[in-house]
């Protein structure tokens, strides 16, 4: 077997080692990578920036721990942005969160706990500044139900407090009354929210999705059914840059960039060798 043939049939564990090195090195050695903010991410940011005073924002945290590295930094960056606007510009924006995924509640609770730690409970008070409805099973039926009668569909919040007793729901009878919605999705729930939520109940929405599914949502961005689209860790890093948040996404981009670059070089080299072998008549 020639060297080229051996290289083309390399044991996969050498590739695993290469991946591990490319991920570990940037954690130890810091270097700058360019993060250019795309119009897709800016669409979400600009919309939140421009919301009128005392608006309510709906967040749907439809992801689980397996998508946490991409979507949890987005959640924190968006919440940080909202509560910073409240603190620095007195916007009085409120957040109502829900999740259609069973493993979403734990992450949602952690995100709000992180905001309480950062901004203090004077600024981030449960029931007044934010509410978390927890997990409601049923998919599209939940979206429809929240659009019809929120307090009927979710009589209590995640912690068991009746929604009828919380000040945040005093003027919020359904999601028709929200000013903007951000859907953070690991699956196909963006279409669910567009079809059964945004269109019939008339509120604008943006989406933050895993990079796996990001390519499929460009038609909705093009048709302006979503104001913005954040895709994967890059989208989270862009939002952190816009909102000036110190999160995990920007540092993560170093490893992303290095491994991408190495993979591209490897794939190009392998294909060149493959074409050379094929032209020689080898396998």
């Amino acid at each position: 077997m020639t060297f080229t043939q051996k290289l083309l049939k390399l044991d996969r564990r050498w590739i695993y080692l290469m991946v591990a090195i490319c991920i570990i090195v940037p954690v130890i050695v810091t270097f700058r990578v360019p993060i250019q903010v795309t119009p897709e991410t800016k669409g979400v940011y600009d919309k939140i920036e421009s919301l009128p005073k005392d608006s309510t924002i709906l967040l749907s945290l439809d992801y689980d721990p397996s998508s946490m590295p991409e979507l949890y930094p987005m959640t924190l960056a968006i919440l940080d942005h909202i509560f910073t606007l409240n603190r620095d510009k007195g916007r009085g924006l409120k957040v109502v969160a829900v999740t259609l995924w069973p493993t979403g509640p734990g992450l949602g609770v952690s995100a709000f706990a992180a905001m309480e730690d950062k901004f203090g409970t004077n600024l981030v008070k449960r029931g007044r500044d934010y509410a978390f409805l927890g997990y409601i099973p049923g998919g599209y039926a939940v979206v429809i139900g929240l659009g019809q009668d929120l307090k009927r569909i979710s009589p209590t919040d995640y912690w068991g407090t009746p929604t009828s007793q919380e000040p945040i729901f005093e003027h919020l009878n359904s999601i028709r009354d929200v000013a903007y919605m951000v859907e953070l999705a690991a699956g196909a729930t963006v279409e669910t929210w567009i079809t059964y939520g945004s269109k019939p109940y008339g509120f604008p929405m943006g989406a933050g999705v895993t990079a796996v599914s990001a390519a499929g949502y460009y038609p909705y961005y093009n048709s302006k059914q979503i104001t913005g689209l954040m895709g994967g860790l890059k989208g989270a890093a862009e939002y952190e840059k816009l909102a000036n948040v110190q999160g995990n996404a920007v540092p993560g981009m170093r490893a992303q960039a290095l491994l991408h670059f190495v993979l591209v070089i490897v794939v190009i080299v392998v294909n060149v060798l493959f074409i050379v072998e094929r032209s020689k008549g080898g396998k």
Partner: protein
Amino acid sequence: MPLNEVLGIWCGVGLTLFIFTFLYKDNPFYRFAEHLYVGVSAAYWMDILYWNSIKPKVVDAIVPPLGLERHLIAIIPAILGFFVILRLMPSLTWLSRITFAFLIGAGSGIGIPQVISAIFLPQLSATLNPINKEGFKLAEPAHSAWAGIWGWLGAPSPAQIILLAGVFSVVFFFFFSVEHKGVVGNISVVGIYFIMISFGAQFGYTVMARISLLIGRMQYLMQVGNSRQVFYASTILFVLVIVFMILYEVMAARRPTTPEPGESA
């Protein structure tokens, strides 16, 4: 750092390393972690379902706490849900058909007009939008002149042509009622190339997605798990796992070979 947090991080790091041992090969550490995940996830789901849905919407509706009204009608959907659980008993499986007929029939009836109005028509409208100035950017003033000329001619811009060609050739490709020969075949081939570009772009994004997940874990192992406050849990456990894997390999090599059918949760 509180003891419970230190203990928690040690457990998290240990389980993370157990899962990573699968990269070498299937082994008892991975199997243990995998089965633990299955058990804990099932119970988590059950707990969340009970406290977030069943208690407020069924239990409290039938036996309300003080100050709340009774809504006995909640019994009907609870019974319909119970019919689905009866699928575990072969003689009573047929009862679940009533529930499925209700859910899927009603869902189909809701879905048809909703999907047409919310997805089909807006997407069609965006496709046939005559002038798409944003799709093809030249430097100014050439761009305005270009858009102006195309607009005056009433013709779609180059970007719009690409969009129309792409959408309709892909739709043609997925139309299998007519054989893909002749004109239809040629249009389908154009569709295939558009799909290949899209799948290539999707693959590029997928690589980014999968790497992100690994980056998250490495950040946890190297920053959270390897700090002094948790007594360098990642380093110690990494060494221990390597040692135990070597011992396992040595013991496996000494054991007489018998076929071991793989069983997973």
